[in-house]
């Protein structure tokens, strides 16, 4: 068989992405039709930049999700076809079996794996970790930043000192110190996970309690159910067989994160949360001087009610924008970890690791490194554009 021309490659890649296109079209048409009823999200569709950014982000999100169901990928991302080592894009597979996709659309890497499928699978790693890690970092930052900004004083001095301590650490040094196998063996990342992951529970508990404190009949059952479920999830997340913390027995443990993901997750949350803390603290210090806060204080509301139900909703604009930017930053951090071969297993298809693999032969074979590089670039660019569009739209009212 002849190698594919560039035109053929592009057509075949576009066809391969069919489920993503369908999903994108559905999402966009529904959103545009109902955009007046969708609040800030709907307003996003008034700004071109925001729409382009959202499209790029959702493209990778759908790619990740469908890729996880083996819809888009052409080959197993770990399968090696020995004749395909370092072959350029569009090379046909010699003696392809029935049912096997006959081409490596974006060529093969130096271990003769399909670059295209690895890129698609790599999107899943990012889509799984980055938003969730950012969300956790926000929970930590909000839970600590609100009281620091609201009360001020000694608490603020202490927490700000801690935050500055972490911020003064060069990120790469921190990663090298936390993610090396020797340190992982001592269980330090697991203990850190234990501390960091408790913050979402505290956050939700305080949030609900401060709202429904006056209605014990609603509050008590609600808190019991929510905290029970979250506590179970927390214990399943934290307890890992074979590490320092094995709290739950096998049958009760809901899920275990595979190979090093927990460690990567913890270090990314750890690095991000002090910055979120500083932003939330600044916003809280600004907003606590407003009249509606004074009104709530005069009404006799408790401090936590004021923080979570008066200050936090009014700080949502900057926080949402920063959330988008921070997901992009987290994606870059994940790539950095992969680039230095830290944390994730070496055969992992995530973009940082693939760029690192590909760069060794970069001067001769471009495609194994360029493809994930552009994937990462477009995703982060999409998030930045989305943040820009959101900022513009939220400033408008």
């Amino acid at each position, binding site marked *: 068989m002849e190698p594919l021309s560039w035109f053929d490659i592009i057509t075949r890649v576009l066809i391969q992405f069919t489920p993503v296109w369908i999903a994108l079209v559905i999402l966009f048409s529904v959103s545009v039709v109902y955009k007046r009823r969708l609040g800030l999200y709907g307003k996003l569709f008034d700004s071109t930049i925001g729409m382009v950014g959202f499209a790029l982000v959702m493209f990778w999100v759908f790619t990740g999700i469908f890729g996880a169901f083996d819809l888009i990928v052409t080959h197993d991302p770990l399968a090696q076809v020995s004749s395909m080592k370092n072959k350029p894009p569009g090379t046909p597979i010699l003696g392809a079996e029935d049912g096997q996709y006959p081409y490596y659309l974006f060529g093969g890497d130096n271990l003769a794996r399909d670059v295209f499928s690895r890129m698609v699978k790599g999107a899943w790693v990012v889509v799984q970790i980055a938003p969730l890690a950012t969300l956790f970092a926000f929970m930590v930052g909000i839970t600590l930043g609100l009281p620091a900004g609201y009360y001020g004083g000694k608490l603020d001095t202490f927490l700000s000192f801690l935050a500055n301590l972490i911020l003064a650490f060069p990120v790469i040094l921190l990663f090298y110190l936390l993610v090396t196998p020797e340190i992982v063996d001592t269980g330090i990342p697991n203990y850190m996970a234990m501390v960091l992951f408790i913050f979402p529970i505290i956050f939700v508990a305080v949030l609900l309690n401060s709202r429904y404190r006056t209605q014990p009949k609603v509050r008590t059952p609600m808190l019991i159910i929510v905290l029970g479920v979250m506590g179970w999830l927390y214990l399943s997340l934290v307890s890992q067989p074979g590490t320092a913390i094995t709290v739950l027995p096998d049958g009760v443990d809901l899920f275990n994160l595979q190979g090093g993901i927990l460690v990567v997750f913890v270090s990314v949350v750890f690095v991000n949360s002090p910055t979120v803390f500083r932003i939330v603290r600044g916003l809280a210090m600004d907003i606590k001087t407003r009249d509606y806060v004074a009104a709530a204080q005069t009404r006799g509301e408790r401090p936590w009610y004021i923080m979570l139900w008066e200050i936090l909703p009014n700080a949502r604009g900057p926080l949402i924008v920063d959330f988008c930017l921070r997901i992009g930053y987290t994606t870059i951090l994940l790539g950095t970890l992969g680039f230095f071969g830290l944390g994730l297993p070496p055969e992992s298809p995530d973009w940082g690791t693939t760029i690192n693999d590909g760069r060794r032969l*970069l001067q001769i074979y471009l495609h194994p490194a360029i493809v994930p590089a552009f994937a990462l670039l477009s995703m982060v660019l999409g998030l930045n554009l989305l943040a820009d569009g959101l900022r513009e739209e939220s400033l408008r009212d």
Partner: protein
Amino acid sequence: MALFLLRRIGTMLLTALCLTFIVFWLTNLSPNLEKLAKNQGNVRMTDEQVASFLQDRGYSQPLPLKYAQWLGVAPGWVIEGRDGTTRSRCNGVLEDGTIPEDGRSFCGVLQGDWGQSTVFQDNVGSIIATRLGLTGKLMFWVMMVMVPGALIIGVLAGMREGSRTDRSLSTVSIITTATPEYVSGVVFIAVFASTAFGLRWFNGSATSAMEDATFENFTLPVITIALYGMGYIARMTRASMAEVMTAQYIRTARLKGVSFPNIVMKHALRNALIAPFTVIMLQFPWLLNGVVIVETLFNYKGFGWTLVQAAGNNDIELLLGVSVVSVFVVLVTQLISDIGYVYLNPRISVS
């Protein structure tokens, strides 16, 4: 002002102490020490041999004591080993079991004694000095490219907010902030230095730039680092410039009939550059990240490359030295940015 400075420096020293202690603790955890013993001695040592190896070399002392010795505020250890030789921290192997007349009892970072690197078989202080010099050269050129470039882009974009120049320059800066060094570096090598693409304008490796930096071998690493920071500073400059341009005194100047270039150069620029100044100073810690990535990618054996080597090879003393230096760089730039902010902006008072 003096009190403010004193407070800031005090906090800075406390932060530095805490951070170095954390690094010291993490590098001196028992698995790391065990690995060190097996590297230095014998891979097939038994646990007992490892323990005695570590004890003879002062590694089994309590952590705070070790830290104090490393810092140079406690006298270095002198231990008579189980193999009969007496070793000391400051004076090596002692023949007769006592510290010689001219020997020192304190030797730590404060005395300028940074220990011995196991990877490079050299004094940590001199390794860091040479590597830092190389990175300094790189950083100098990065700054020369990044700061003027970012300020020009920012001022041009912020001068007339919403214009076509503004739109296109802002898009460029968003793209550069979305391109981490390992992506732009890979793309640059692919386009400008690979045989596959054909344009061979620059070198894909900067190893030769360590002795003799030329346009060919130094452009790509410098541009790669500069680009990532550039977009961010440019956006800050743009925002601050746009804000200044709407101020009352600019309108007064326009109504008086001052020409537009004159307004920008004489009235707006100074006030618009206060915010970017802090941002530029706070970019240093971030640049350190970029330096590590770029030096690894382009094989330029500077400070960042040394960090990777030290961390990857469990070279405890070198890693500690590298962390001390990088933590201090970060803290000092924070201090400078605080002082500079107060100094540049008379509206902020310290008390």
